[in-house]
């Protein structure tokens, strides 16, 4: 802020304002969603104190955990101007494999199951990534295809078999019950995922490449960024995270089978979008996506806790998604107008 000797003072002023950390926070796309979340929780807690009881908080966090992880993965992919609709199917396959491993391999160590789940997820993500990057085909079409295929494989493999919580070791189930400093263990895991991925995207060169690619893929190619490799890795990471979510699903819920996780894809995309990740790539953050995911899961719990007629709940979720997109839009239009007027002064 002191490097402006050669510049006209009028140009320096708005800039100095724009750079202060406080205003950076205030301009963040994540802010409206975060605010909505705080208001929602506060209002609900006033109406129904049980909502913030230790058990209530634990439930809220646990509900959000799996979708947060999926939304983080999805955000990575969306930022590169792609999308992965197959996450629900990947989660289902991995969850079923988890159940099947515990049921069929006597005394298999839990870390091995985690690794296997991550590996399967990564492989399925890699298939998406390969098809998208090698064949240069739109991701929406490819992953709509693999959504069907992975689900089909899951059905063929599982048939009517389901594995239940009772088939798995207690220590595995305990992961989604036990808490550490008041936080459920798997929630902490999700938190680590969010922070690591978030820092990577914001601060690593290859992370920034993803934004550049999403912003203009053709320009990225012309500039010489390794577009194919980065997009491929985005899909693999997303698959990996969907795999993690699959294993955690098996830890938290009772049964895993042929239909586990189906229909989840649009919720995940919705979470990312609500959290301010632009659907056409190039902007947004995983923190936003995570907050979006928490907001969407919390709204359901909140409406139940407020005893809102259950028939209204889904409609309200829809309105909320729309509101989030509209607010985001208003914010960005306002910035654009400010930019136009301030720049006209600068000339």
């Amino acid at each position, binding site marked *: 802020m002191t490097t402006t000797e050669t510049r006209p003072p009028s140009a320096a002023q708005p800039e100095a304002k724009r750079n202060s950390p406080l205003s950076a926070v205030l301009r963040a796309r994540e802010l409206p969603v975060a605010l909505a979340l705080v208001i929602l929780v506060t209002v609900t807690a006033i109406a129904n104190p049980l909502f913030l009881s230790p058990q209530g908080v634990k439930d809220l966090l646990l509900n959000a955990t799996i979708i947060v992880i999926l939304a983080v993965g999805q955000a990575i992919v969306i930022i590169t101007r792609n999308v992965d609709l197959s996450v629900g199917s990947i989660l289902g396959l991995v969850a079923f494999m988890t159940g099947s491993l515990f049921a069929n391999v006597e005394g298999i160590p839990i870390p091995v199951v985690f690794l296997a789940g991550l590996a399967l997820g990564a492989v399925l993500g890699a298939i998406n990534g390969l098809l998208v990057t090698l064949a240069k085909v739109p991701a929406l079409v490819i992953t709509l295809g693999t959504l069907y295929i992975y689900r089909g494989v899951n059905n063929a493999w599982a048939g009517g078999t389901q594995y239940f*919580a009772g088939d798995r070791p207690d220590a595995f189930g305990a992961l989604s019950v036990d808490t550490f400093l008041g936080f459920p263990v798997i929630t902490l895991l999700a938190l680590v995922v969010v922070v690591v991925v978030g820092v990577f995207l914001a601060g690593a060169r290859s992370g920034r490449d993803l934004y550049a690619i999403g912003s203009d893929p053709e320009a990225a190619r012309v500039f010489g960024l390794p577009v194919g490799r980065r997009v491929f890795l985005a899909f693999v990471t997303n698959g990996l995270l969907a795999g993690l979510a699959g294993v955690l699903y098996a830890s938290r819920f*009772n049964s895993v089978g042929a239909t586990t996780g189906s229909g989840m894809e649009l919720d995940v995309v919705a979470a990312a979008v609500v959290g301010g990740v632009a659907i056409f790539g190039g902007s947004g953050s995983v923190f936003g996506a995570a907050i979006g995911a928490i907001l969407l899961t919390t709204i359901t719990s909140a409406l*139940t806790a407020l005893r809102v007629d259950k028939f209204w709940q889904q409609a309200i979720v829809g309105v909320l998604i729309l509101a989030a997109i509209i607010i985001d839009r208003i914010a960005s239009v306002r910035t654009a107008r400010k930019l136009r007027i301030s720049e006209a002064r600068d000339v």
Partner: protein
Amino acid sequence: AGGGDDGGGGSGAEGEQTITFIPKQLNNPYTDVVLGGGEEGAEAAGFASSQVVGPLDASASSQVSFINAETQAGTNVIVIAANDPDAVCSALEEARTGGAKIVAFDSDTNPDCRDVFISQVVAKDVALIQVELIAEQIGGSGEIAILSATANATNQNEWIKYMEEELASNPEYADIELVAKVYGDDDDTKSFQEAQGLMQAYPNLKGIISPTTVGIAATARYLSTSEYKGKVALTGLGLPNEMRPFVKDGTVTEFALWDPAQLGYVAAFAGKALADGDITGEVGDTFEAGELGEREIGDGGIVIVGPPTVFNADNIDDYDF
């Protein structure tokens, strides 16, 4: 118009008779047990071939196209568990025009569209036994809730109706208040979250009835992983294999179910009797159901399979389904 071109001649024809089961949804554990019994019954009753077809999702209309294909394939007996009593009706009518016999089981269709309905148990009995169990477990007073399957599941809705009547009319239950009915759509995740929601919305809740195998298991899973374990009672209809850990860890004390395999078994024999022309589905008709002995068609064309069993820690290990 335009029924199956070679579907006719089913009734009376010896030997080459075919039967097809169309469950609510494939790849569901409860359904698998029912179908296991059905296939066994079909073989015992002497069908030349038995098939299972059906949708992967339990939506209202998805069964129609399967019925159509079976109509065209000239199947002699279609055994169906309807996702929607009316949505399958016109397709079943068409199948009947083509000569097929229709047996409903598990979940009834509109009575006009089938020849006979094989019911688990007397609907009222199922309802009463669940109310009885919950009353016992919560000590006869307090708030309770119901967590059901889909909002328009025929069988569950009928049971719930009887439960509500019983709670309202029986003085023994005067202190019990039914505060909510929620629906988990027979989806594990959804049921789990509905259970969770109940706990928060109704802090004084004493017990939950879940008259569906998916719902009771998901609820049990939630209770067993929360502070409500042992404080909130849970009963309903469940599969012993699924419920075993929760009975053992004390989340659930008692729940009920009939033997699902018998349902399919009886349905197959009813289908055979219809196809052979031994019965027409009239009230009072009787037929032999293999090793389960003679069955009679009751009011409304309904055949009752048997009384429900109550499972608890003492007897649960005797069952494997």
